[in-house]
């Protein structure tokens, strides 16, 4: 019974019902607005097959490079594809890559972080050194090297992004576990004969979850930007899949013709999606670390 209490209180404190969020000042509003943006884009992407006026990958559905008009509200690109349909459905890849990479990061980063920092000693030193080396590296460049070797594909893109972001999880978990494991209640659990595994997962982990959630949302935003960047340098998915990243990549070559609509709308979608996740992440970190809340 005792072990339920800290967990329950923490969850109640940090995951208040949505209505409570608005009463938590700016941080609450940031989470609400960010959440709304992400939700709207997620719904739009999910229902895109039913709301798209045209097939997003069908070519020559209209004139080439047509200005936004009543028939094609966001114009068409150099292949005569309808930009509105492409904007509706182009986020699916972003979501898949981001979700997959966050899952991989959670599955790898959290156990390593918990175990290494709880064990301490050489394990901790070696893990920290490896993680810090990766962390210090320009993320996109490392992701490029890995993605270039693995080849195109959603899973490969997600994996190369995950490698870059695992250290962020490791660092935040480590910094917290180092403090938490010295707290009296953990010592008490230890004295009462709790196994290390029990201490780690039942007593320490619940206290780290809020930080993990905050890192994960920022990770979502970064994964989206990195996925777009990988596509931009030519390591994206085949052109037959609608993707905002592709529109931005090809749109660059169309700029001299004055076709602003080809890059503007997909670009704004990427910004909005990344902004949504960043707002959630910023709000969460402010809620969880009231000291930084100014």
């Amino acid at each position, binding site marked *: 019974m005792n072990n339920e209490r800290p967990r329950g209180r923490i969850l109640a404190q940090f995951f208040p019902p949505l209505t409570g969020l608005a009463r938590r000042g*700016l941080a609450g509003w940031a989470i609400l607005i960010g959440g709304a943006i992400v939700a709207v884009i997620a719904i739009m992407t999910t229902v895109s097959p039913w709301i798209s006026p045209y097939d997003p990958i069908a070519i020559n559905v209209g004139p080439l490079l047509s200005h936004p008009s009543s028939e094609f509200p966001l114009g068409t690109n150099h292949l005569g594809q309808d930009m509105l349909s492409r904007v509706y459905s182009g986020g699916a890849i972003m979501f898949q890559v981001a979700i997959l990479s966050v899952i991989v990061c959670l599955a790898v980063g959290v156990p390593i972080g918990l175990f290494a920092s709880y064990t301490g000693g050489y394990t901790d030193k070696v893990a920290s*050194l*490896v993680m*810090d*080396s*990766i962390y*210090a*590296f*320009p*993320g*996109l*460049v*490392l992701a*490029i*090297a*890995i993605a*270039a*070797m*693995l*080849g195109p594909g959603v899973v490969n893109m997600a994996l190369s992004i995950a490698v870059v972001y695992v250290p962020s999880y490791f660092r935040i978990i480590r910094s917290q576990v180092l403090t938490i494991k010295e707290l009296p209640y953990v010592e008490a659990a230890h004295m009462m004969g709790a196994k290390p595994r029990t201490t780690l997962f039942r007593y320490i982990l619940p206290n780290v979850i809020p930080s993990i959630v905050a890192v994960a949302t920022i990770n979502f*935003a970064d994964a989206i*930007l990195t996925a*777009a*960047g990988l596509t*931009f*340098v*030519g*390591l994206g998915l085949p052109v037959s899949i609608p993707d905002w990243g592709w529109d*931005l990549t090809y*749109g*660059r070559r169309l*700029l*001299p013709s*004055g076709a*602003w609509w080809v*890059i*503007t709308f997909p*670009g704004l979608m*990427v*910004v909005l999606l*990344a*902004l949504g*996740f*960043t*707002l959630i992440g*910023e709000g969460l970190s402010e809620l969880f670390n009231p000291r*930084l809340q*100014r």
Partner: protein
Amino acid sequence: MSLRSYVITRLLLTIPMIMLLLTFVFLVIRVLPGDPASLHFEKQVDPQMLLEFKRQLGLDKPIEIQYVDYLVGLLRGDFGKSMQDFSPVSQQIFSAFPATLELAICSTIVMIVVGIVLGVQAARSYNSVQDHVIRVFGIAAYATPVFFLGEVMIMVFAIYLHLFPAGDRIYPGMTPTGLTLGGLHLSTGLYTIDSVLEGNLSKFIMSLRYLLLPSLTLGTVLCGIFIRLTRGNMLETLQSDFVTAARARGLKERTVVYGYALRNAFLPILTMMGLEFAALLAGAVLTETTFSWPGLGRYLVDRITFRDYTAIQGVVVFFGILVAMVSLVVDIIYAYLDPRIRF
């Protein structure tokens, strides 16, 4: 700990970090599924030719020998041979590096100036509309893909307004030569500095015009973190006693804010500059591609198109060593400025 022993410790810590990185990159290229040589030739290739190709690049040797060759080569500044034409990658890297360095320096200036000015403004107008607008701008800048902002800049300033050039470093044939004094030739590869050395004002202005859009793009995307950092530090500093005392003495508000308070908020900004250098390089890769800026980033992206894995490895390794060196230098400057860090 004295400054000297701090520097030595920090230096010794950098070596395993670089070693780990080098090993990691080596393994990524060789151990991940797919053999780099066969990946290079997308289609079927004559096995005899593939073998000869591997022999030329030293990829036929056992992996541990390759690893030793790779490390020994790096010590001599040899980053391997390109898969495309077997030319040394280091030559390409060193000729492309000044362009990236120039872009990085100018973007850093934009990033720091915009970040500090907006951060100070936000702190001074704490919790007002201006403060919120600046904070949202900072977050939005972070969430913008650098190449999208670059494309918008090209569209607006180069294509519609014809104010600035959209790509490359300088007008063809106008490359500044640097300083030549008799037999002595001095040239940095940074076009702004070279044109000054040459004493050619029009080339200097031209190189600045070519630099402006890319550095503005990269600087703006990265300034968000500096806005937040400056704002947070200034909020605290502006409430401290010495600021109140300075105000009580009747000093101008500008002097109090920029002369007194900002100076105290500067140390964390310096640390952040070191940490952001990696992000700066990553951003430079995309910015250079957007603006056809002939630096290391564009070289890397070109090599990706050619599936030139040895060149990719060379550039990635070079970036890694560069980042490690910069963070070392920043840490040493920081320890020099703030003696507390050494203890």
